């Protein structure tokens, strides 16, 4: 792999970062486990949550690749950079309640939808673009479609596996050991950090 290890580490690291965020799903799994009185429910809930997240990432990656097929890389970088900066602004602004479609009685399909929506709204997939550029656009032109798609799929899988690992660890830590009281002190406001990550990504795309 000519691009080296760094972009792949970034893909996995962002997966861990997303998994850390209670709004990405581990807290929902904990709550469902508590409601239904079963650790198995926690484990069950994590799978559709991870799937929804993976679909959101895949959608963003696919959109980027499709755009890359028609746009010059330099133009693509500028468009994506502006989009990311706008999304960062939105993540800060959206910090208040709005339409809720999935509740505590939800099934697996509801969890997939919920997780997809949360990850998309937070711009989770967009954060991966800096890693995608070296992985899928090495050399500055889009290589063979099959190779690119394969590598993109690998990006989605690696990211989602890292996300699932961290989110599962946190879910069971809170469910089995520390309890939800921890939310009162340890639930830090990640929106700002998240917006910073999006902005940095956007700037890298614009200036890098």
């Amino acid at each position, binding site marked *: 792999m000519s691009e080296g290890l760094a972009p792949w580490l970034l893909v996995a690291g962002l997966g861990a970062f997303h998994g850390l965020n209670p709004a990405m799903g581990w807290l929902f799994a904990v709550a469902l486990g508590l409601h239904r009185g079963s650790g198995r429910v926690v484990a069950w809930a994590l799978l559709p949550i991870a799937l929804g997240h993976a679909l959101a990432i895949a959608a963003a990656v696919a959109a980027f690749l499709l755009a890359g097929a028609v746009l010059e890389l330099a133009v693509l970088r500028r468009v994506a950079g502006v989009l990311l900066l706008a999304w960062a602004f939105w993540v800060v602004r959206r910090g208040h309640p709005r339409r809720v479609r999935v509740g505590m*009685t939800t099934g697996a399909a509801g969890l997939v939808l919920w997780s997809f929506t949360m990850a998309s709204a937070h711009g989770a997939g967009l954060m991966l673009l800096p890693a995608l550029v070296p992985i899928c656009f090495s050399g500055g032109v889009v290589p063979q479609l099959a190779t690119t798609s394969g590598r993109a799929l690998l990006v989605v899988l690696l990211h989602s596996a890292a996300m699932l690992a961290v989110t599962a660890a946190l879910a069971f830590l809170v469910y089995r050991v520390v309890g939800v009281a921890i939310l009162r002190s340890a*639930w830090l*406001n990640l929106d700002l950090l998240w917006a910073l990550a999006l902005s940095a990504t956007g700037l890298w795309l614009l200036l890098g």
Partner: protein
Amino acid sequence: MATSLRPDPTFYPNPRLAAKAPPETFAYVVAFDPNRAVPDRLAVVDVDPASPSYGRILHESEASAVGDEFHHFGWNACSSHLCPNAPHPHVERRYLVVPGLRSSRIHVFDTKPDPRKPRLVHVVQPEEIAERAGYSRPHTVHCGPEGIYVSALGDGDGKGPGGVFLLDPESFAVLGRWELDRGPQYFAYDFWWHLGHDTLVTSEWGTPDMVENGLVPELVLGAKYGRRLHFFDLHKRRHLQEIDFGEKYQLVFELRPAHDPTKAYGFVNCVLSLEDLSSSIWLWFRENGKWAVEKVATIPAEPADPDLLPPVLKPFKAVPPLVTDIDLSVDDRFLYVSCWGTGQFLQYDVSDPRRPKLTGELRIGGIVSRAPHPSAPDRPLNGGPQMVEVSRDGRRIYFTNSLYGAVDPQFYPDGIEGWMVKVEADPAGGMRFDPRFFLAWPGPHRPHQIRLEGGDASSDSYCYPS
């Protein structure tokens, strides 16, 4: 939007943790002028027993105009913001949203920077509510997963149906009608929800023309006022089920669902039985995939000398208990019942919700009894126990004595002199008046709903079981 690094310290994930919250040191109480001559007020009352001004009003903030009839107010944000499906934990519990039941204005008071001196920062005008939501006569406010929910008795023209609408929790703009499909629901009054069961419940009083000049005896006797509960899907906003209490029952009012989100039951008071003037407590619960109700307690009318009764009651020779408010402790163990007619204040142990056990009874005011407070045993009081609020730890209960400007004189023709009292509850059951806490409310205002510092038993809902 003002956000913080950590969750608002007054948010609790579950009722058990909320019950460990520090005791309140002050309370917010809305008070209205029944003559609609001076503006209504939001008062701050000192409830810290160690304070020299204990039991006294510390500060009053005024409405923007006259004639609001401040009613069941609430917070912009509360513990439901910790819910996993709609997490907004870094929003502050900061604004008090006060509906004007008669004016259809909604006043928003900011409790920062000095929580003991709330400042009026916004007024939602009736035209905005009518245009954007199609409602009027806002009645009850709850903070919840999608923002600020407000129930309304009437439509934009002051007729029916009433319902629920949403306010933006940041700008307080009216977002619109909450219901997507209201089904047969027509009358509105109170509402609340089971977050663990994705269900919203509403109760019934009447449309504005049926209540704004007082209760109409012919409508009561014809069982024309509200007598139903409605169950909605909280997220799809669709009507699921209606339960009619039947022709014998009138005025199904305050909804107190269990705080534990896994428990699928709640209590509601029915003010009047047309058979015997009794009031009753009903349990709603989930059974075989549907909601059902069951009458679990009856409070009988008390025989009385007609000479001592207001005209509306003389023919019946009895005082109805008129249970007009109830409140459930945060641990779901005790239910408090205000009997505005007889002056009784009751405590039931509802550990077994289908079999409430009477564990405490006090009396103050009352249409006939005019019972005094222990602080002044020779001073007869009018009005009766009405809006009741329970501290999060369940140890302290506060209540006021006025019901509604147009109905007060029907049952207390000599005019209600406002008061607020405090009751101390024994964790094992039983209660007594705090002899040091009797707040004779300064006229012409009459006190109504109470909200306690940081939250109370009817302000917050929770997503995590204890």
